[in-house]
């Protein structure tokens, strides 16, 4: 079976761990618990008629206290760039992490995940900002780790992109 390393990248409290918990174990907790260190989960995804084992690296959120290390990103085949739709500043953190990921892992596929779709009325990232990301050619998926909306789709979109990506130098 094909195996792919996938990293969850984003600012703190954007919902990276919750997305993994929803995707891997179908569970959700309202309580915010800071991730310390890196947690690795596995899940088999069927995409394009093939089964792929995803090694999902849930990396702590980047902020003044913790910085994502290059060694954590090496060898990844793709990444989910997680943004909290209710906090505009997390989009800027995502952009910084995107640059860092490019520097270390090269031009690997990624999907921007606009999380917390269940709190749409409190969103600071509006449709204009959303379409601007799409216009850049970025794959963007709205998700809710709470309701499960878009979560499978986000991981499947990334898996397909990884499977169809040209071999990386």
């Amino acid at each position, binding site marked *: 079976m094909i195996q792919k390393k996938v990293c969850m990248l984003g600012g703190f409290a954007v919902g990276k761990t919750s997305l993994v918990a929803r995707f891997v174990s179908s569970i959700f907790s309202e309580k915010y618990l800071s991730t310390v260190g*890196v*947690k690795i989960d596995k899940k088999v995804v069927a995409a394009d008629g093939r089964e792929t084992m995803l090694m999902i690296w849930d990396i702590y959120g980047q902020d003044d*206290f913790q910085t994502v290390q290059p060694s954590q990103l090496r060898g990844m085949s793709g990444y989910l760039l997680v943004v909290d739709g209710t906090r505009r500043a997390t989009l800027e953190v995502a952009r910084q992490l995107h640059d860092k990921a490019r520097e270390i892992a090269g031009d690997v596929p990624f999907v921007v995940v606009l999380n917390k779709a269940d709190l749409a009325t409190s969103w600071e990232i509006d449709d204009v900002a959303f379409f601007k990301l799409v216009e850049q050619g970025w794959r963007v998926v709205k998700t809710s780790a709470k309701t499960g909306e878009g979560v499978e789709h986000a991981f499947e979109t990334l898996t397909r992109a990884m499977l169809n990506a040209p071999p990386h130098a």
Partner: protein
Amino acid sequence: MTDTLFGHLFRALDLAIVERLSDGLFQLLTPAPVWLEQAFEAAPAGARASVDGAFPFLEDVVHQARAAWRPDGTPQSFGPFAAPVGDEELLLRATALNVEGRTLLVLERLQGVADARPMLQKARERMLEGEDLVRRVHALHPPAVAIDRTIASLRAAALPADQQALVTALYEANERLRDALGRLPAPPVRQRR
């Protein structure tokens, strides 16, 4: 005597040393800490096991440790990794090194980093509260501007003296409010469109 001493020492430090064998298995060279017992089942020193399943991060560590395992390599640490063991989530660090041609991994539990978690949690909760406060302050700006406009038009209007005094008092109170608002954190940076 020395074996017993080192056995106690490794247990006290909550670490274990394993050797990566040519067949891909790991051989335990020290007594196993409790958290490693399951991976090595009975966990006697000398037990061999494929611990990648119990600790998925090791697959990546083994891949990245090649440089450290070369005869001229220097020790390299990886982690911390959060590993579920029973009902607990432990923080582990792996250090790869070559000693006399043997490819070793030191696996240690990081108690200190784990202890920092409540502090980090609290700090981030405070940051979220701070962000929320800034958003609330930002939400006050549009009504404050509307109040400014209303007071300005009242001041420009030809009102009786007693009402003018009231408007002046209102103006002064609003100035203090504007001053206080101005000293609060700036609203989140808006994206350029």
